[in-house]
């Protein structure tokens, strides 16, 4: 009797386990659909972002209808969870055929062998903004439909009232001028004159602040060798910049708290905001004709802003790379690139799409971002070490913001980056 009921329980749980096993398993890579098409799985980071998903769905529908060899199947992830999900999938050897990646991590993925050379026709890659292409060791691994750009947002009336010169792309603020403007604005009653988004975390930090470091003459790594951060991230220029950065918080020019986004500027609580084009529309609504998009200040070597946004690559486990290429080729049509740009408020990657864009075309309200991107955009270092550089830079930057000693913090960051590069045998450089 006792063994009978025990056996019953065991067999019941075995059946249950089998039933569970049978559901929920998805075909990956090169499985075929019922009508004999090769299925291409595709992951995006766009869950929860209907404006972007809408364009992808359009492209996929059009592509699937345009031929009968391939069928693209899309799976979207929320951005905050995307990197965690994709790294786990890579470790488990379970990547989809097509996946999008933030530009700066592309070399890391290429080095690790998770993505393969893109192999798109040269006329497509040549037509794209240089910052919309991801390379490693002179080989193209990814391409994107857009780039983003940062600018300093201001109200014309506020600058004029306070006798602050309005800078132009040809004649940006020098750092002394900029400091003076912040002092003036603080005296004029702005408790925090400038919002630089320091309350944000993650990739925003290197994206927004490492260009300032480069403008001051420092860098994240020695780009000639890609083997050490010594001298670049802890040299006198870097120390000078980070000292400025720390003092900006001490003096109250900028704040480490507040809300992510551009609300403070739109409500007039801050006079200047260093932010991305994706925040520009609500500000246009709030300030109208009074709104200015200004170049960031020149810390010494000319203004710099970050380049490279999300881009597409093909995994090396993809069983049908021709299919994946066919899809990507299809997707780089100007009409789709324009749709992304206008839905997402990002700079179109092709000239044709830019001309057709409502916001970024010659008469568009956000045209200045195109010019800023062309003039000043600089890629983050194209090395597999970027993953650790990014995380280390953010940590060091935040520590300095919170009062840590500048030189020793930067020395620690350099030691950490260099140790990592060494333990990875130079990452192929």
């Amino acid at each position: 009797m006792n063994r009978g009921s025990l056996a019953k329980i065991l067999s019941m749980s075995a059946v249950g386990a089998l039933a569970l096993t049978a559901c929920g398993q998805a075909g990956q890579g090169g499985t075929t659909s019922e009508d004999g098409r090769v299925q291409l799985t595709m992951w995006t980071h766009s869950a929860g972002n209907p404006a972007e998903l809408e364009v992808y769905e359009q492209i996929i529908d059009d592509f699937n209808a345009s031929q009968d060899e391939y069928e693209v199947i899309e799976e979207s992830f929320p951005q905050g969870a995307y990197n965690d999900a994709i790294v786990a999938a890579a470790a488990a050897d379970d990547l989809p055929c097509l996946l999008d990646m933030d530009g700066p991590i592309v070399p890391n993925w290429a080095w690790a062998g998770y993505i393969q050379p893109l192999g798109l026709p040269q006329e497509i890659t040549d037509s794209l903004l240089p910052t919309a292409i991801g390379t490693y060791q002179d080989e193209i691994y990814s391409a994107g439909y857009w780039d983003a750009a940062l600018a300093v947002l201001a109200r014309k009336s506020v600058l004029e009232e306070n006798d602050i010169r309005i800078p132009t792309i040809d004649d940006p603020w020098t750092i002394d001028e900029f400091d003076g403007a912040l002092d003036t604005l603080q005296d004029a009653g702005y408790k925090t004159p400038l919002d630089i988004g320091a309350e944000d975390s993650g990739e925003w930090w290197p994206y927004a602040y490492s260009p300032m470091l480069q403008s001051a003459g420092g860098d994240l790594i020695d780009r000639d060798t890609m083997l050490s951060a010594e001298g670049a991230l802890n040299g006198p220029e870097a120390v000078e910049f980070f000292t400025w950065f720390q003092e900006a918080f001490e003096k109250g020019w900028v704040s480490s708290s507040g809300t992510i986004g551009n609300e403070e500027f739109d409500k007039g609580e801050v006079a200047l905001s260093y932010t991305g084009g994706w925040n520009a529309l609500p500000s246009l609504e709030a300030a109208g004709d009074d709104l200015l998009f200004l170049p960031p200040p020149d810390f010494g070597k000319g203004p710099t802003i970050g380049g490279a946004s999300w881009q597409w690559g093909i995994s090396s486990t993809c069983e049908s790379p021709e299919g994946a290429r066919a899809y990507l080729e299809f997707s780089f049509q100007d009409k789709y690139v324009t749709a992304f740009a206008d839905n997402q408020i990002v700079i179109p990657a092709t000239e044709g799409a830019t001309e057709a864009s409502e916001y970024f075309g010659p008469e568009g309200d956000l045209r200045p971002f195109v010019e800023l991107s062309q003039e000043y955009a600089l890629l983050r270092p194209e090395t597999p070490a970027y993953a650790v550089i990014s995380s280390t830079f953010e940590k060091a930057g935040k520590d300095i913001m919170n009062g840590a000693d500048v030189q020793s913090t930067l020395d620690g960051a350099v030691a950490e980056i260099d140790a990592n590069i060494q333990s990875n045998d130079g990452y192929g450089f």
Partner: protein
Amino acid sequence: MATVSLTSRPASRTSADRVEHVLRHRRKVWSYVAMSALAVVFLFPLVFMFVSSLKPDAQILGDVGSPRAFLPVGDISLDNYFGVFDRVPVGQFLVNSVLVTVLTVGLGLVVNSMAGFALSRMRWKGRSVVLALVIATLIVPFETIAVPMVYWVAQLPTLVMEGGVLKYDFGWLNSYHVQIVPFIANAFSIFLFTQYFSTIPKSLDEAARIDGAGWFTIYRRIIVPLAGPAFATVAILTFLPAWNQYLWPLMVVQQEELRPVMVGMQYFFQLNTAWGEVMAYTSLITLPVLIVFLSFQRAFVSSVAASGVKG
């Protein structure tokens, strides 16, 4: 009145009673005041969450420094809830979480109570070593083994239906069972069952043995019916982590149709966070837990009390 003559007995009785009555009354008032003040402390973040879910983003941020944060005032609407349903397949996520939670808790009750029974009431070789090892595993936080776990479950065998045929495959990623099976056995549950079962008199088993009952029958017919409080306690305590799973499904589940509720939270953290929708979504996913808890609270509170946990 405070000083009572001890000599006149009848008088002392009544006035002592009165003193005690007044004291008791005063103490009662004070404890109500204290308990109410604490209730405010424990509830206000949740009130903030529910109230904010009715407000537009700008107003949430504007109200945050004033008592208005707790009051449904200003521009009140259900817009955030509509926004949530537009952005996230809430229904699907809820179904997934209910499925994962119910199976994890249900199978866990069976498996862990059987182990607790074997460890507390039966004699077998290696029992005390096993018990010590089970207790030792309590110190392993899941986050520290998450990465090896991903590697490991990606190697485990599984059966798949392909074109109507059962096939053999490797890799547990992207399924319901990868969210359930690793969390069925739980050292803490086994420990609680072991504790509780050992308080039930052994003579019951012996009597049943003499009547010819097998061990499984003793477990099923005698011990389980007597251990309701332990089952209720373990059920609630395993329900919470199963419902709140976050890091693990993030790593091992790629299909949207299989995601649980906590992962859905990330949908609102875009370039600019939609705070109103975050509040609405957190309210939505907290509500089922509160309802389950409130409907079982009487049983639960008394069951923890009854299970008389021992160290």
